[in-house]
């Protein structure tokens, strides 16, 4: 069986630990320190197996992360290499080209995925498609619960609660010189303005995910940001020529409530 799974960065930071055998908190820290020392100092061309305390540890490096799994002496090391790869591929599909930052900020999701892959230190599912489907189903249960929670009774509290959608919208006008880059945060109480962190004044950055910070007393007028959902635009019987349409916003993602 797999006794534990460890994900450590090149600097020895722990990104994920999962224990399938009884180790006290103290023992866990000791194991992590010891193994990190052994694995991080191994030369790159050596084989992916290390003998350690009577067990075997299989590890593989993916970019800046070391994925390690500790198994019994008589287990199949080559298979565990495949299991590690299986996990990495599923993470990659879920996050879309996964990187270490994804696993840092979404560690709970990395755990949820691992829990669909292994239980009691044994493999649970060999189909990546099935794992992806199960995770998606549970994620959508969480979404539904969130949407229900943000119903009428919660509107008052919404001001301090997390947002559901971030809609990007860009307006540029050479004549009016209105600031071109603004993100708009939709809540049920109204719109708040945000300015993109990358400091661009003109031009949208749809291909990048950008963090936003709230802007108090924005210097640019909110009035020009007259937002309409796309179907309203498409079905409008008459479009006001005075209105300037520059860009259609794209929902770039839903944010986790926590």
């Amino acid at each position: 069986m797999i006794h534990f799974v460890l994900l450590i960065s090149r600097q020895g930071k722990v990104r994920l630990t999962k224990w399938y055998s009884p180790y006290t908190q103290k023992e866990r820290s000791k194991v992590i320190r010891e193994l990190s020392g052994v694995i991080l100092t191994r030369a790159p061309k050596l084989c992916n197996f290390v003998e350690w305390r009577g067990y075997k540890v299989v590890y593989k490096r993916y970019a800046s992360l070391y994925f390690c799994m500790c198994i019994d002496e008589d287990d199949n090391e080559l298979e565990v290499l495949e299991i590690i790869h299986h996990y990495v591929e599923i993470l990659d599909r879920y996050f879309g080209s996964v990187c270490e930052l994804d696993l840092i900020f979404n560690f709970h999701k990395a755990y949820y995925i691992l829990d669909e892959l292994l239980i009691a230190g044994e493999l649970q599912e060999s189909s990546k498609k099935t794992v992806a489907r199960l995770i998606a189903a549970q994620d959508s249960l969480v979404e539904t619960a969130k949407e229900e929670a943000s119903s009428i009774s919660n509107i008052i509290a919404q001001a301090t609660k997390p947002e559901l959608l971030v809609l990007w919208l860009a307006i540029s006008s050479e004549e009016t010189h209105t600031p071109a880059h603004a993100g708009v945060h939709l809540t049920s109480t109204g719109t708040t303005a945000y300015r993109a962190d990358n400091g661009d004044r003109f031009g949208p950055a749809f291909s990048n995910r950008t963090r936003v910070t709230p802007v108090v007393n924005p210097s640019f007028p909110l009035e020009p940001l007259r937002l309409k959902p796309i179907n309203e635009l498409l079905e409008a019987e008459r479009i006001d020529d005075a209105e300037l349409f520059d860009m259609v916003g794209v929902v770039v993602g839903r944010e986790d409530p926590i």
Partner: protein
Amino acid sequence: MDPILNPFSSGTRLRDMIRTIRACKTAAEERAAIRKECAAIRDSINENDPDYRHRNLAKLMFIHMLGYPTHFGQMECLKCIASPGFPEKRIGYLGLMLLLDERQEVLMLVTNSLKQDLNHTNQYIVGLALCALGNICSAEMARDLAPEVERLLQFRDPNIRKKAALCSIRIIKKVPDLAENFLKPATALLREKHHGVLITAVQLCTDLCKVSREALEHIRKKCTEDLVKTLKDLANSPYSPEYDISGIADPFLHIRLLKLLRVLGEGDADASDSMNDILAQVGTKTESNKVAANAILYECVQTIMSIEGNSGLRVLAISILGKFLSNRDNNIRYVALNMLMKAVTADPQAVLRYRATILECVKDADASIRKRALELVYVLVNETNVKPLTKELVSYLETCDQDFKGDLTAKICSIVSK
């Protein structure tokens, strides 16, 4: 840091707290930040606001992963698990698995919630409970909840059946007496087509055999033939994108079946006979030099070497290992040397045929391979070959690495004294 959003209030989102902590430049700064955050979480816990429970727990888990103590958060796990909503239960069970271990008494308090959730109408909640139980239950909890898990082995959804199968493994390991209760439902699962259920059921049966003599005999008698057929069908199955890895259909299932067959064939001539054909097929037809294929071959070799004698198969097994020894991938060379060590006791002559390649491995670039190869040479030494073998070793001594010289010299001395 934005003055409006204080990262140390529970109103802050998880990712803001993470970012703030990551921005700390020294260990002292980080400690101070964590202390502040823990204080805020403690206050929030005392206010008992259900809306922030979810977020507090996630923050606690992050802090825990950094290595700081988080005992004060354990009860929050229980409160989340006891909440009716799926998101709270999901994070609650995760917190449980991360922040607690089976020796803690607090764990017992979850038993009731677990029992309710194992009977929940929402199958994903049943799944959460099975997962948590399968990962950290104590012997007492195992005993309490075994009947629920047993029942779930026949649940309508395969996702639950496969989780129940793995959960059962933990239960029988904690309380071996209960093994006989799981025997019948476990063997019934062996007839399923769903790969997830098959993989977990085969693993469950393997562990049942290890834990109970009666289980082993029962499964050997009733299931060996069917298992051989399942493996045959799998090996001959057409391309399936869902399960294909490097051109092979579900290598994981291949490997688990081979492992179970090994347990069943060991010490029993009839059972071993019935698997000879499929072992020969897997051993000869598995092509490709990818890890998946070699993992299957490796398992196949292990099975052949453990079951009752068929000299033809053993020759095949050793030849596979021989090929492994010349493989460019050092992982493959490493496992081959390991296996040859075990094969030597059964058939030293066959292994000796690969003497030259083994000696090459003593000079390998990889230290673990050199070590293994040296041990193997030591075991292979006999009166007829001691002279040429030691000669080789001594000549290598002149050119090898400093740190290896010690080991090598010691080994040469032991050989001479043998």
